[in-house]
């Protein structure tokens, strides 16, 4: 058991090292600044990736996830409601009700407005 583990680890390290060494020996070496640029769906990068984001993005992201999950949950329940019956119906109603309270709270504290 232990020997098998040691052999496994050793082979893993050797294989990794050999692969890197081999590719280093075989590949051509032509440095070019364009190769180091970050690539995002075609558009050219216009600033550093570490610039500050508006904090409001996160509120929107959280609200989006919240209702995304709700939708993802409602579809399967809607399809299976015939088998699940009234108990499941009321449980889903409770679930939506809980989210509604959260939605109203977010609306009230200004989570839906972009600039404050």
């Amino acid at each position, binding site marked *: 058991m232990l020997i098998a583990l040691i052999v496994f680890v050793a082979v893993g390290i050797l294989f990794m090292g050999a692969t890197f060494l081999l590719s280093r020996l075989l590949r051509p070496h032509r440095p070019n600044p364009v190769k180091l640029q970050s690539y995002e769906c075609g558009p050219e990068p216009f600033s550093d990736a570490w610039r500050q984001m508006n904090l409001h993005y996160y509120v929107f992201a959280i609200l989006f996830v919240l209702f995304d999950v709700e939708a993802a949950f409602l579809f399967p329940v809607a399809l299976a409601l015939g*088998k*699940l*019956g*009234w*108990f499941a119906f009321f449980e889903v109603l409770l679930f939506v009700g*809980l989210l509604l*309270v959260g939605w109203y*709270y977010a609306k*009230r504290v200004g989570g839906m407005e972009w600039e404050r």
Partner: protein
Amino acid sequence: MPDRFLFPIPQDLDWFALGPIIVVVATGLVALIVEMLRHKRNNAYVVGVSVVGLLVAGAMAASQAGEPAKEILAGTFLRDRFGCVVQVLMVAACLLSVLFSEGYLRQKRIAYGEAYPLMLWATAGGMVMATSRNLVTLFVGLELLSVSLYVLAGLSRTEAKSEESALKYFLLGAFASAFLLYGIALFYGATGSLHLGRVAEVWTSGFETGRSLLAVGMALILIGLSFKSAFVPFHQWTPDVYQGAPTNIAAFMAAGSKVAAVAMLYRVLDAAQPMVALWLPPLFWVAILTMVVGNLAALVQKDAKRLLAYSSISHAGYLLVALLARFKAPDVVSDAALLYYLASYSFMTIGAFAVISVAARAGRESTGLSALNGLWQRSPFAAVALLLFVWSLIGVPGASGFVGKLLIFRDALAADLVPLAIVLAVASVVSVAYYLALVRAAWVADESEADAAVAPLNAGSGLALGICAAGVLGLFVFVGPLLGWMAGPRSAEAERAPIVRQG
């Protein structure tokens, strides 16, 4: 149309047994709605709704303590005496913290009404942790408690210390959760189930791979829980978080969060009873380290909240001794010492934090020991109460802390854990030095800064202090019946006998 088509309610769904948790969660929702509809900056109704809801939930939990143990929803929840008593403790911890919150938050100009729903949901999370044997349910309860507390720790948004506290708590809490989740995944791999009851079966099966997988999974789960209970060497977050968080939240963390974490640890160790030979030695050393490091580090603290944080670490060590004694000798030792100590610790700690909350002020808050200077003149009641809590925290006869330590000491001896009993006794002696620093700051020393805060004791704080003081004394006076209630009628006789001799 078949019957199940109309209304197929799960057969073992017992609404009343789940009642306390449902009531607390629903009260949180109602409190949030009330908070949204309230008049400007008046949280009176929010506090009122919270208090009423907590009282109802506490009564529901207490009324079920005597009923036979029962699994609900296919083992997702477990209603038994231990769970009910812990639920009552969680509710009491939340109630006491809520009582002194409003005055404190107002003084600090951060009277956001959202604090109360979050505290209620954190309590509900802790209650779930005490009443389940399903690892995923336990995890969801833990996260409900933790996520609410991350937000609450950062409640004082303009204060850098509070933000630091929230961030540190969040990062280390997430780290601990990762350990726990990995452990749960391995547990599932080993047992094919998320129910803790499967441990014994797999462990005794003799299937070697399953056994080692289970052992590693259990180890990871225990590490995650050690973070949450602040055992040494997983304690480093505690002082920073307690110091930075608003004092009422720190009180709830120190009492409620600790009770919940120890309760979950109890559930896990209870299930892992067949593996006791494996986890007892490491936890034995963790207990010794926790008691020694907690008490020694507390000696050099200059900040009242940090001092209480290290005090809470050393009390976590005493609680771990009680847990180890309980599961090393399950036939001799009952739950009584653990539950009694949890109750006593909650009252003392919340009381001590409530006294410190008189140092509240807007913006940057100083909770150095000198902030308590002259307390006996400003608020004699708070100063006397502090004396009582320190009395009890040290473990001098006359208050509940003494009985708690005595019970743990006795259990440790009964379970043949003599080194732990000795370390516990020595650690208690060492703790006298730093607890007296609190008393000295409040009664003797006069090195107060020019801006030392002078907050009058408001009604809520007074009430909370009074209840905590009554709790500390009441636990001492009514120790016999209370132990009977906590440990059940079967062991009540065995528990009562040595108590008479103490009296």
